[in-house]
């Protein structure tokens, strides 16, 4: 992709703007009177029109102009933002997207959309009286530092910042570069400075009043931020004569100031950087080994320094790659809107934990599975309103998309309050497919897991919505490829929940390096609960029944030596590494625990795609290779062994 082609830059910007417009419109269906939303949509349309004309997207500019005019009337309070009007603009927004992306967008389609829009505007024409104009807002940039003895003399920075916050919307940044090193630091002196971007209707003197007691002794700069971007974007015809034009620039500026500190980088460059960091981590662990076997203290010091830096670099890199899951969740609101329309069901969609952060690659690869799961929830999970009323539920079905971090994993849940899974039908399907013998007893959990089996669909009719190629088995595989797991719970008549457990990042994990026979393996550290000694007595006693007793609980264990058929005599001091997937635990018997190891994961080749015991490989500091154990798989195997042994008595 070219970074300097203006048309390409515009296309990217247009995508963001259209996103902003779409979000605003969707929010508006819940909060029709919200001025900020109306302003946000209007600003989006306005900028889209202006920039479009500037970069030669004339058709887009002309089309957007009509929508902007319609929305200007909403903004001025002349027409109400009725659902019909919002829908008309939403439909028009799709057309704009096509125009911006240079897809085929016939004039006739555009004209039809505009005709709909006109009708909607006319129907919405008799809105209430316009609201009182909002007071004029100014954005100030305030930089201040307090005298060194301020803290001793009873001046506290926090109440000052709180007072600034009371004046208006405020973004505060502490400037720490004057803070001396620890040895030179006098803890009662104030070395911090602050930069505050404040958007307020108050005059500059109100800001000075905040600092009244210290203003003579401190450094204080107050600048008015001059509006540019929004106000100066060219319009096609209509000069911006309306009185609000000047005001709207200020808050937009405040946001722009914050956005100015961010940088857009193509994702592949981040991936390259990540690869380099990975190589560095490997090189560093080689250095560490060399240094460890050397008597040269300087070499050791440098090695330790490099280790620290590499670790920090890795952590920083991780943070750079983390993006909030709201990016992903935001996309589904449109999906729900369309699903509700197509199914004729009433759907109340809500999201939780949108600020949860995940690796960018993981977020992208979660999109398709989630689309499928949400479609399923809307299509198969939720009942039509009449059926819901008949079973004593509220007519509107609920779908909740949630995310939360739990250790080194993020748990994403899709919950609906629909009819739940029909066990009888799943059972019938499973028997038909030969997955389970007729009449065999299986647990409810196991029954539900059949849903993820290839070619398993309980829907009697494949609808246009859910029957689109990917099945739950594909969803499951995608999640497992992310080193995650999927689990369904469901209560008949009350609803279902699908929980996805996804590791925070794909590239690097902390691992526990162990030895079994001659070979070394890595166990992902977040899965490790504890390590215990397996004494020879215990070892002998447990032959045949592989359990150890841990604080009165029986934990099944797997002898990796046997699993990997090392063919060597067992060693005297074996260790049990107890790993868990959250619910279930299993012990892994190893010969030696070598220590923790930062692991850059290298995927196994396609040739080994069906190997389930290992999730990848890594290169060790001495150049050797260690395989990374797939804990989810091993725990499941351990639990199966547990079940068999219990069944066998």
């Amino acid at each position: 992709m070219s970074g300097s082609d203006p048309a390409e830059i515009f296309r990217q910007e247009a995508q963001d703007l259209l996103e902003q417009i779409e979000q605003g419109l969707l929010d508006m269906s819940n909060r029709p009177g919200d001025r900020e939303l109306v302003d946000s949509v209007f600003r989006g349309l306005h900028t889209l029109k202006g920039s479009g004309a500037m970069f030669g997207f004339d058709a887009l500019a002309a089309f957007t102009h009509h929508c902007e005019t319609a929305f200007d009337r909403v903004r001025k309070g002349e027409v109400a933002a009725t659902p019909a009007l919002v829908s008309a603009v939403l439909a028009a927004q799709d057309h704009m997207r096509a125009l911006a992306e240079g897809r085929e967008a016939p004039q006739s389609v555009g004209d039809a959309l505009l005709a709909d829009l006109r009708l909607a505007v006319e129907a919405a024409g008799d809105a209430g009286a316009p609201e009182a104009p909002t007071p004029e807002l100014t954005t100030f940039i305030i930089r201040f530092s307090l005298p060194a003895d301020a803290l001793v003399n009873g001046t506290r920075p926090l109440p000052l910042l709180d007072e600034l916050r009371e004046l208006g919307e405020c973004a505060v940044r502490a400037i720490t570069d004057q803070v001396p090193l620890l040895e030179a630091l006098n803890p009662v002196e104030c070395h911090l400075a602050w930069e505050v971007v404040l958007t307020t209707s108050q005059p500059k003197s109100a800001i000075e009043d905040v600092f009244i007691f210290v203003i003579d002794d401190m450094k204080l700069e107050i600048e008015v931020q001059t509006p540019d971007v929004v106000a100066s974007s060219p319009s096609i015809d209509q000069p911006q004569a309306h009185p609000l034009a000047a005001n709207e620039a200020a808050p937009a500026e405040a946001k722009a100031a914050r956005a100015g500190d961010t940088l857009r980088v193509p994702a592949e460059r981040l991936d390259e950087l990540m690869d380099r960091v990975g190589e560095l981590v490997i090189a560093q662990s080689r250095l560490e080994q060399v240094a460890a076997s050397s008597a040269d203290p300087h070499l050791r010091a440098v090695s330790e320094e490099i280790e620290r830096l590499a670790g920090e670099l890795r952590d920083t890199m991780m943070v750079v790659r983390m993006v909030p899951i709201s990016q992903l969740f935001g996309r589904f609101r449109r999906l729900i809107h369309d699903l509700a329309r197509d199914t004729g069901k009433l759907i109340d969609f809500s999201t939780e934990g949108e600020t949860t952060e995940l690796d960018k690659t993981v977020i992208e690869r979660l999109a398709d599975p989630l689309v499928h799961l949400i479609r399923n929830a809307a299509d198969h999970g939720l009942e039509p309103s009449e059926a819901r009323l008949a079973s004593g539920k509220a007519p509107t079905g609920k779908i909740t998309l949630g995310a939360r971090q739990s250790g080194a994993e993020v748990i994403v849940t899709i919950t609906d309050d629909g009819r739940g899974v029909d066990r009888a039908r799943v059972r019938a399907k499973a028997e038909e497919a030969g997955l389970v013998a007729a009449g065999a007893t299986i647990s409810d959990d196991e029954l539900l897991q059949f849903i993820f089996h290839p070619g398993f669909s309980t829907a009697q009719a494949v609808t246009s919505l859910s029957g689109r190629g990917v099945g739950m088995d594909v969803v499951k595989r995608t999640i497992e490829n992310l080193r995650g797991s999927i689990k369904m719970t469901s209560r008949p008549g009350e609803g279902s929940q699908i929980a996805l457990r996804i590791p925070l990042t794909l590239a690097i994990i902390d691992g526990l390096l162990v030895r079994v026979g001659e070979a070394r393996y890595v166990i992902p550290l977040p899965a490790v609960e504890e390590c215990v000694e397996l004494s020879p007595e215990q070892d002998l006693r447990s032959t045949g029944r592989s359990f150890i007793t841990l604080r009165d609980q029986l934990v099944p264990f797997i002898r990796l030596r046997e699993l990997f058929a090392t063919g060597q005599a067992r060693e005297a001091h074996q260790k049990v590494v107890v790993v868990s997937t959250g619910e279930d635990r299993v012990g892994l018997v190893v010969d030696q625990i070598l220590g923790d190891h930062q692991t850059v994961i290298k995927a196994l080749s396609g040739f080994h795609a069906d190997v389930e015991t290992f999730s990848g490989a890594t290169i060790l500091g001495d150049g050797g290779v260690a395989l990374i154990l797939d804990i989810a798989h091993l725990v499941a195997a351990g639990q199966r062994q547990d079940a068999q042994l219990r069944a066998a008595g």
Partner: protein
Amino acid sequence: MASILTVDDSASIRMTIKIALANEGYNVVEAGDGAEGLAKAADGGFSLIITDLNMPVMDGLTMIRNLRAKPGNSGVPILFLTTESDVEIKAQAKAAGATGWLTKPFIPEQLVRVVKKVLAS
């Protein structure tokens, strides 16, 4: 609740301050001059000290200097009352270690506003 010490030789001013701040839920302790104020605040324990400057026995500036010299009172906000909106007095008081001031005469609302300004909530 935060304890506030008010140091003033005028009982009526002390009363005004006490009533206004007690209404806001603060616990108010009184002292009649700088020496008494210094004695009561010597070991710290107050969230805020409000003091007059012209007082018998020990004046406000001396009291502030003495308080700041004691580790227990480092960082405690000290407000002084002043009838003069005199720059000179303010500079002296701040040099002595005062945090801010309140100009007499004041109404209770002004007092409460200034107290809340310097007290971290």
